[in-house]
């Protein structure tokens, strides 16, 4: 073990600086491609620290493992919010050739299509400020959150299958939101090819009452004031104005996704053995994309993705109702800015060696951030690029970025998803108490409504990396550039 560690430390010193914000993990051992890290000295120091603390389980090791997957194209990317995950780091992305490549559990994780859905409220921050307490309480009542909460959407037998097949559209059919909004959701709120037969009965049973629930942990529903505009042209296209108000909903596919992940961990472990794929980490288990197991998993992931789109659409509808009740505005006036997913696998067309190629892009804790002129971006935004929503923490800013041409060329149109954790939950719980946090944030003008005060310190702002630094790395690297910065006003949590 000691020898192995010494070798590793030596190797870490070999991370090459390519440019101001790009580092390379050289190809060696079983790696098929090099790793690329978008970061600064702090990012690299944090990665080395992770490695020192746990030589067997850290982001650099996970990058090395991931870069050895069959069919991987160009590089395995780690973005500025990178930290250790399951099989692959959170904040990583890779693209696989559909004929030679694999689909891996590690590329998607347990929380399939966890993401952010942002709404633009037609009010000034000063108007919301006047009724802040009222709207906070209304949201807290209306949006089911926390352990064991039930969604308002009662599903009959077989209807959950429809949720998985139709995604956000199913929820619209049930009277939650309007059809015109669907185009402002990644993939229009529905990925094709989701076949519920690939999802276990267990997964379906766990999810029955969970559509329209926020969950807990790092999931939230936040009212935000647009504090600063960096890019006037993009802000205008996105409909953002200084002192305007957004509501951002961060959640995923809930237990449906968790159970799909759990179920396929063993199916893919078997497949890895069957197809003789060398897997150095049990959570990197995979199957060739073309194989039956690979196709089944891909289809199940799509089911989870659609359920997450539906979940966020259902919550968005509850938020609209809350605002209509408190401020007397019409629900239709609250527009969808965009909805992005973080833990996804999607077939996309990207350039490799100068040629456009169909690839399976697997984003783990990473957001699609397409640049201008891509057909997948809604026509309203197509000239400027796709909105990218980067969530901060309860006490810090969040950012709206836009995708760039450079991201298309370098990172398969992918960017960061959030601040990324810097401190463990157990340590955060020792450092703060829930009520202390609520009081401190209140002094900053941020109202917290949480079902669990006990769990709150796990999400303390200081338990995360500095979101501004993380965003600035991607901005300066030209991968996704800053459009607006928003400040939390109210945060509802599980």
């Amino acid at each position, binding site marked *: 073990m000691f020898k192995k560690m010494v070798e590793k430390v030596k190797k870490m010193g070999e991370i090459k600086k390519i440019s101001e914000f790009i580092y390379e993990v050289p190809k060696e051992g079983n790696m098929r491609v090099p790793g690329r890290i978008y970061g600064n000295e702090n990012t690299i120091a944090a990665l080395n620290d992770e490695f020192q603390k746990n030589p067997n389980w850290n982001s650099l090791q996970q990058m090395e493992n991931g870069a050895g997957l069959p069919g991987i194209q160009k590089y395995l990317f780690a973005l500025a919010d990178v930290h250790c995950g399951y099989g692959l780091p959170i904040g990583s992305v890779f693209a696989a050739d559909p004929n030679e490549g694999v689909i891996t559990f590690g590329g998607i994780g*347990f929380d399939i299509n966890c993401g952010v859905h942002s709404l633009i409220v037609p009010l000034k921050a000063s108007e919301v400020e006047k009724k802040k307490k009222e709207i906070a309480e209304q949201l807290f009542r209306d949006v089911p959150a926390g352990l064991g909460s039930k969604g308002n959407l009662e599903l009959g037998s077989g209807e959950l299958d429809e949720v998985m097949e139709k995604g956000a559209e199913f929820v619209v059919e049930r009277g939650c939101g309007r059809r015109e909004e669907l185009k402002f959701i990644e993939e229009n709120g529905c990925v094709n090819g989701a076949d519920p037969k690939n999802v276990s009965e*267990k997964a379906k049973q766990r999810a029955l009452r969970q559509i329209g629930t926020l*969950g807990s942990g790092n999931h939230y529903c936040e009212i935000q004031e647009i504090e600063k505009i960096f890019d006037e042209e993009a802000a205008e296209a996105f409909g953002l104005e200084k002192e305007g108000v957004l509501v951002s909903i961060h959640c995923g596919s809930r237990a449906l996704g968790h*159970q799909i992940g759990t179920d396929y961990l063993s199916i893919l472990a078997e497949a890895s053995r069957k197809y003789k794929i060398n897997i150095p980490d049990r959570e990197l288990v995979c199957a060739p994309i073309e194989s039956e197991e690979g196709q089944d998993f891909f289809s199940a992931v799509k089911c989870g993705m659609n359920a997450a789109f539906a979940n966020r659409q259902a919550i968005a509808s509850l938020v609209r109702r809350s605002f209509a009740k408190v401020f007397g505005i019409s629900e239709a006036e609250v527009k969808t800015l965009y909805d992005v997913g973080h833990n996804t696998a999607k077939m996309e067309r990207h350039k490799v060696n100068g040629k456009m190629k169909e690839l399976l892009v697997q984003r783990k804790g990473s957001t699609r951030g397409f640049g201008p002129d891509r057909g997948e971006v809604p026509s309203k935004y197509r000239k400027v690029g796709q909105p990218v929503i980067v969530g901060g923490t309860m006490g810090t800013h969040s950012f709206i970025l836009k995708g760039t041409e450079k991201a298309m060329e370098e990172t398969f149109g992918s960017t960061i998803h959030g601040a990324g954790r810097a401190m463990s*939950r157990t340590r955060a719980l020792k450092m703060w108490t829930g009520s202390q946090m609520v009081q401190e944030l209140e002094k900053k003008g941020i109202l917290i409504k949480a*079902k669990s005060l006990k*769990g709150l310190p796990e999400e303390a702002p200081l338990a995360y990396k500095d979101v501004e630094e993380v965003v600035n790395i991607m901005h300066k690297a030209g991968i996704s550039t800053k459009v607006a910065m928003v400040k939390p006003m109210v945060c509802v949590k599980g």
Partner: protein
Amino acid sequence: MFELFEHKADIGVRGIGETKEGAFAECAKALFEIMCDTKKVIPSQKTEIIVSSNKLDELLVEFLNELLYLKDTERMLFSKFEIKIKKVGKKFGLEGIAFGEKIDAKRHELKTEAKAASYSQLLVEKNKNGKWTAQCIVDV
């Protein structure tokens, strides 16, 4: 005894016992301690548990995930476990009863929901002093 141990993004659960069953049961308690105050969960309702796996350590993951499944579908929280682990042929089987009650937000001091037990830092072993440890990382 059980404990929660550090991990940057999620939480580790560890159970220590005189027997492997004891370590599994304590580890399951740690899992519910992530989600609530297990001292407040009265072990009044019984739920039968049967899981199996090819490996002893993977049996722990199966067991914890089965409990998470019951948490969502039966809306149960558990605070006591009586289980037996047997080797049947090449497989390991776990059978027994989980004791707990329906989720009650008013009484159970609910905390963070656990999504899944993972294979990360998964370990089931007998220590030098004869005690068993059962642990893994839980995604929250």
